[in-house]
């Protein structure tokens, strides 16, 4: 089926960049390399910025990013081409032991701006709020900041964690925590907050009622070579869609 397009092809594809992409990339690489041992695919992380830079410099064939290529980057590497292959929702998360279950966007903004500092102010227990934020390089932060926080200035005392996994760990362990993470990462250890009455689920993201979403991209430098094109097609095909959904993202057709 899907893997037939690789027959007769050979060579190597180096992939680097956004970390959210890695599970999907790994699935694809594994399937392709098992079917055709002449092809070598390596997958590295590094973050969205690194992905763009590496593909721009020609160090890798595919550079992943969790955001669109910025204007400055486009200026430096004008030949970049982006392929969006999945949609990812971002949801505020709190500790499962927290009695709060829903918040309004304004409340969340006030919390992240440092105006609300105690859970009792939003209907919870009398306890200090511990805010967890992501770094500036994070695509997750970028979309959450734009679409949920409305670009307010986040309070400087907020803790900063370097990845989705670390965010989950931090919130899962701290009863007073609030943070945000990719919907794909939500499991029993954290509680996703109902935002303005809309539950952050894949269905709500697809049907557009949940607004805090972003796209995941693969970027190439100029027109992709046949092998790279085949890889992109494969990820965006039926097998790819299955894997994308399995990892908590929403495939783009």
């Amino acid at each position, binding site marked *: 089926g899907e893997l037939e397009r690789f027959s007769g092809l050979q060579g190597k594809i180096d992939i680097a960049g956004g970390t959210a992409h890695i599970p999907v990339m790994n699935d694809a690489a594994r399937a392709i390399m098992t079917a055709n041992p002449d092809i070598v695919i390596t997958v590295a992380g590094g973050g969205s910025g690194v992905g763009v830079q590496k593909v721009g410099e020609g160090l890798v064939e595919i550079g992943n990013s969790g955001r669109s290529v910025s204007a400055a980057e486009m200026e430096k590497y004008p030949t970049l081409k982006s392929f969006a292959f999945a949609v990812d929702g971002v949801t505020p998360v709190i500790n499962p032991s927290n009695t709060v279950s829903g918040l309004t966007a304004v409340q969340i903004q006030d919390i992240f701006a440092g105006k609300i500092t105690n859970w009792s102010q939003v209907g919870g227990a009398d306890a200090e709020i511990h805010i967890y934020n992501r770094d500036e390089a994070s695509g997750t932060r970028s979309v959450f900041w734009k679409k949920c926080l409305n670009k307010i200035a986040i309070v400087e005392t907020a803790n900063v964690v370097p990845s989705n996994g670390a965010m989950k*760990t931090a919130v899962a362990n701290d009863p007073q925590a609030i943070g945000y993470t990719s919907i794909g990462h939500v499991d029993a250890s954290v509680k996703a907050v109902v935002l303005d009455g809309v539950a952050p689920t894949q269905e709500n993201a697809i049907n557009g009622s949940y607004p805090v979403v972003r796209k995941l991209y693969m970027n190439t430098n100029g027109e992709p070579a046949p092998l790279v094109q085949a890889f992109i097609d494969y990820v965006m095909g039926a097998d790819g869609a299955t894997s994308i959904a399995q990892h908590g993202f929403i495939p783009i057709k």
Partner: protein
Amino acid sequence: MLNRNSGKRDFTAGGRLTSPAGRIHFPGELLLRSAALFSALIIFALFGFLAYFSLPLFIEGRLGELFSLHWRPFQGQFGILPMIVGTLLLALSALALAYPLGLGICLFIHGLGPALLARPLLLLVQGMTGIPTVVYGFVSVFLLVPLLRNLFAHGSGFSLLAALLTLALLILPTIVLLIHSQLGQVVPALRLTATALGIARERELLYISLPASSYGLLAAAILGFGRAVGDTLIALMVAGNAARIPDSAFDSIRTLTAHIALVVSTDSQSTTYQSLFAGGLILFLTTAAINLLLHRIKSRACPSGDGS
């Protein structure tokens, strides 16, 4: 110590006394010298590289931006002052905690503890250098941070305190092993003298053996500090990373290294990115300053500089 004042030395082949034309320099010394020179060059290369990449900031006179208190890249504020302060606070306090402990452990190994325990303890410490940093970070996220949060009921537990405790454990073996390898050389020769004079072991170590291994003590402090300043993962994982100057040990801080790790993945051309190298340069200069200072102190402490 050897031969530093011997002026010209030559290595004539064989047992001949004279070699009329063209003395043969033994290639070995040349090799050694080039190794040393090469190592020195690396430093300058590193320095040049950091300077080159942060040059734009200097040329364009935007240095003032760096030395402000606020890191808000989206609003065009690139202050890395909080990170510098955070780095120094963390590294110095970790060293201040680990160094005396390391010294205590060394003294234990060198005669204050039962001889039977010394060797296993040393092996334990040596083995500890192999524990990856990331493991320390991870264990303290699950063990230490919740503990601190519950103990002090203030802040989230991700804090200067958590980072410094973890970091102290990380740099402890470095300190112990460096002091130990020096003491190991010095002690046997001096011990008999001291002990025959009726000087107790504690005082012998404190007043005779330790001063005689001053170079090792200094090396331990420098390498320990270097390790503390240079560590990325522990700070990243447990210090909280809030880019502000902390009010107390329970507050979250961000170090320059964690900062670099956090920012390195953004777009490569922005001021944000250049500020990284400036941060690196500042780290570099900081260690340079501290080293110079230590040298001063040391040369004042023993002016003859001899006898080691």
